[in-house]
């Protein structure tokens, strides 16, 4: 495609073509146009602002003057189940498992490109547009694509992302798993073109329902690009969702994640974010709690090594009474890696009976590792309970010594301690097969 700041008519034609190539209806093309108009007028992020002080926005956002090529997102949908259960069932049927399945304790059962059951609807976002000829109800409800540059670019240039709708009264027994494999297949970019990828996942849960959803992002090895996944989660009254996001990018990818959340009255959301791959990852978590009784938890597992850099920004705005929020980030930092945790809890005067917690624990594994923590609180209401904490430690020598005395090598012992450090959060998935999936993905990196 041509450059973003090319003549307006030309770039608009390109976005229209993009919508057409994905088979999207005209309503989707209109949103892309709006996004492009906003992207060309909105200011670039200000490096003097706190949230951009440690990450250079140029590393994450496209160069407006250069032509670009967009990556494809191949989505595979399925459910997870523990092999122990499956094994038992198969044994009853007299079938023996293949050797490769025995190693993994969790199994991904493919359900194709779209799922439609009485409990849920899942497909790629483009397919959801095609199906209804209009955007799904929760799409950009807060109109971020008019206000925020990364969201505007995303609206205009999205090629990936999934749409999940959990229907009322649904109670998913097995975790839904969405695997993204992002890459440039069959369109090798030439020298001057920059490589970009934007995806938008929308998760809607209606009325009382229960679900565990995993989005696992991976990319084709050896391909470098700038990725900008946007996740919108919209829970209606009483919905209860656990959302696991795994950033398993290849090492040449820089990634700007935006996670926006809307919670209805008494809705409950748990986000578990695992930062594993990529070179630079900046993640914004933004939640407005404007309905009473909303409950939210954000957990982060950051496994930084080599020259990786992870910059995490959480913002929880308590705007209604009786809400609960809990943020916990555990960062293990090895090699010359760096991590940043900047958390902010803002409690408005009307948000009485707020319970808000924020914690960041850092495990420094090498001489050159660096970690930075800024857990902030801004509180106006008086009837609240707010705490925050941060800690920085290295491996406990006694624990290491103990494990080594039991016959483990130093590396094995260290890995075991890192596993233990993450274990606290992995268990928060509240689902054994989701926990297993997550720990296997972490173990792959170790």
């Amino acid at each position: 495609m041509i450059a973003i700041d090319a003549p307006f008519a030309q770039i608009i034609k390109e976005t229209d073509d993009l919508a057409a190539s994905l088979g999207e209806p005209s309503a989707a093309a209109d949103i892309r146009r709006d996004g492009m108009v906003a992207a060309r007028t909105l200011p670039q992020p200000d490096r003097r602002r706190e949230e951009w002080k440690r990450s250079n926005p140029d590393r994450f956002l496209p160069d407006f003057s250069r032509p670009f090529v967009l990556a494809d997102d191949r989505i595979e949908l399925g459910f997870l189940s523990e092999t122990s259960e499956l094994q038992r069932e198969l044994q009853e049927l007299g079938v023996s498992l293949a050797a490769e399945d025995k190693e993994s304790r969790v199994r991904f059962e493919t359900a194709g490109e779209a799922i439609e059951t009485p409990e849920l609807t899942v497909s790629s976002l483009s397919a959801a547009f095609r199906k209804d000829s209009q955007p799904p109800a929760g799409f950009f409800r807060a109109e971020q694509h008019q206000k925020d540059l990364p969201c505007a670019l995303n609206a205009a240039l999205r090629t990936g992302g999934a749409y999940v709708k959990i229907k009322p009264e649904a109670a998913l027994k097995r975790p839904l798993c969405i695997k993204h494999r992002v890459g440039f297949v069959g369109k090798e970019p030439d020298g001057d073109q920059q490589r970009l990828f934007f995806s938008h996942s929308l998760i809607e849960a209606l009325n009382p329902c229960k679900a565990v959803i995993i989005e696992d992002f991976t990319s084709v090895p050896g391909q470098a690009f700038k990725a900008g996944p946007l996740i919108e989660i919209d829970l209606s009254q009483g919905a209860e969702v656990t959302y696991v996001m795994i950033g398993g990018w290849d090492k040449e990818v820089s990634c700007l994640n935006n996670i926006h959340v809307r919670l209805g009255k008494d809705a409950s959301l748990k986000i578990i974010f695992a930062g594993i791959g990529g070179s630079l990852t900046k993640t914004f978590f933004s939640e407005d709690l404007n309905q009473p009784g909303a409950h939210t938890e954000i957990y982060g597992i950051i496994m930084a090594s080599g020259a990786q850099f992870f910059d995490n920004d959480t913002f929880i705005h308590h705007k209604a009474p009786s809400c609960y929020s809990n943020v916990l980030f555990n960062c293990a930092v090895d090699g010359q890696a760096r991590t940043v945790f900047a958390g902010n809890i803002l409690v408005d005067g009307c948000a009485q009976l707020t319970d808000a917690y924020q914690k960041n624990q850092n495990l420094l594994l090498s001489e050159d590792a660096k970690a930075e923590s800024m857990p902030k609180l801004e509180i106006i209401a008086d009837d609240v309970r707010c705490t925050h904490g941060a800690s920085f430690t290295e491996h406990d020598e006694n624990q290491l010594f103990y494990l080594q005395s039991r016959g483990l090598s130093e590396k094995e012992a260290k890995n075991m301690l890192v596993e233990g450090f993450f274990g606290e959060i992995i268990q928060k998935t509240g689902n054994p097969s989701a926990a297993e999936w997550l720990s296997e993905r972490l173990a792959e990196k170790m």
Partner: protein
Amino acid sequence: MSEKNQEIKDIGNSYKYGFADAEDYVYKSGTGLSPRLITEMSRMKGEPDWMLHNRLKAYEVFMSKPMPSWGPDLSGVRFDDIHYYVRPSERPAVTSWDDVPEYIKNTFDRLGVPEAERKHLAGLTAQYESEVVYHSIKSNLEEKGVIFLDMDSALREHPDLVKKYFGTVIPMTDNKFAALNTSVWSGGSFIYVPKGVKVDIPLQAYFRINAQAMGQFERTLIIADEGAFVHYVEGCTAPIYSQDSLHSAVVELIAMEGARIRYSTIQNWSTNVFNLVTKRAHAYKNATVEWIDGNIGSKISMKYPAIYLLGEGAHGEVISVAFAGKGQIQDTGAKIVHAADNTTSNVLSKSISKGGGQASYRGLVKVSGDAENVKGNVRCDALLLDGISRSDTYPTMLVSNPKVRIGHEATVSKVGDEQIFYLMSRGLSESDALAMIINGFFEPFAKELPMEYAVELNRLIKMEMEGSVG
């Protein structure tokens, strides 16, 4: 207890040092700052040339630096409306209380300063407007070589010592207000404690602003040589005027190997004083520096006592309380830089917000890459007494070495209903229960105060904090 209850109600409502004297000065500069004023002032003080050059250079730095872009709104500071230099008396600081001009003596008598000094202090400096009007030191300390002078006298009597250390901890380029202070400083204390000398009882300074729209820029430098110990106590008040005053001090502490410096401040400026101070300490091998910091008064305070732990085994401690009443912003905190092995630090910060006041903790803990076995802990607790006040916490921790144990904890809460309920079920009235909880909240700070000798400091705390000490 009923008296106590009244005092709780009065927290932050009453200011007992708001009286003012008629202004009858030997010299009072016009408003605004200029190189001419700086030169004139330096000449009047009879300063050496290097100091005048230093001041003029700092003036340029001050003019070129922007106002801080973070923190409270400082648009109310009008640099052009301030009287930068006010000389209350022709004579240099006197050493006999009887020689202090009558009206100044009366002021300090009303503040209760000399009373405590006569009884319990090893030395005292009293600063009125820009100049120190009185200082004294016990003769046995003088014999041991302890120097305790106002900064201007120190520059006259020990120019080499002053030149060697002045501005080494806080360079003029550090921030806008440090530059301002360096260009127009006047008064403050200079302390030098020789090797191995321990000053068992505290040295004290008392700062008073009397004039309207006055800027006080005292400059304090304390050097504790190897193995020495000194405790320095400072208190401040001002009358209430409609025009705001500016207090912008620079305090530099140097603790040599094995030395210990304890610096206690109770800042009780009236609520029309901008209190924008820079305080920093360098602690060398096995030295200890402690800042005991109380912020009760002022309109806006920005104060982040810092300790640079530069030598192996150095220890830093900051214990602070802040009280933000109606219209007040207490933006305080602590800054600890671990730059050597085996250094330790501890920060304890407590704040209460009431009547729309705003208390913030803004802190930094930094561990440089080559500092191993560092231990540091930060704890901030905030109490909100009503629904219109505000409490913020902005800590930053930057760690570049794995061999560390750094922790940070903070809580913000109101006084728990269940705590009140429990105490009431034991027979206390509601307000007595509240008094007891607030007492307990401030206890860790209160017990660090040198109460047996700094009588007037205790009185300050007592009146503002419902008598939580003594």
